[in-house]
């Protein structure tokens, strides 16, 4: 992986993390205000979910060139 590609991946990761954590936080605010009587746990839950999804995406993005994709081939009986 070249350095510029690595830099682009890091930029994409950071932008993704910001968007996902913000979205999770926003959804947490909405659900906390509407259904959960202004408790704090929906915010923490939403932010945590966003962070986890961003981490998973980043991990997949960085591992992608090195992952090998195989498929099972049935043995043909002669």
């Amino acid at each position, binding site marked *: 992986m070249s350095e510029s590609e690595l830099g682009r991946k890091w930029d994409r990761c950071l932008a993704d993390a910001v*968007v996902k954590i913000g979205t999770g936080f926003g959804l947490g605010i909405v659900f906390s205000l*509407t259904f959960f009587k202004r408790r704090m746990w929906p915010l923490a839950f939403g932010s945590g979910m966003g962070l986890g*999804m961003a981490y998973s995406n980043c991990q997949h993005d960085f591992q992608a060139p090195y992952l090998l994709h195989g498929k099972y081939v049935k043995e043909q009986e002669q």
Partner: protein
Amino acid sequence: MVARVWSLMRFLIKGSVAGGAVYLVYDQELLGPSDKSQAALQKAGEVVPPAMYQFSQYVCQQTGLQIPQLPAPPKIDFPIRDSWNAGIMTVMSALSVAPSKVREYSKEGWEYVKARTK
């Protein structure tokens, strides 16, 4: 009867607000692949400042208040990434030559002390 209708109305309003938020997230693919999130962030960066400016202008017109013009933020032309990389490389090369340099300087110091004490 009225209380029941009112509580049902409240539930429907809350449900529609929450459902609308979830639909918006799904429609904009904010929790999807990372390139879609990056595109959404870029779009937000382009749309939000003019919208904020127009809203502030509307508020000024309605209330008669004058919001003072903030000065433009200073443009920092410092290449952080290049200087960080150069700094890391300098530190690592210094660490790699440190043992041999220490040996050389200690040898020179020892020779100097020996010469002095003769």
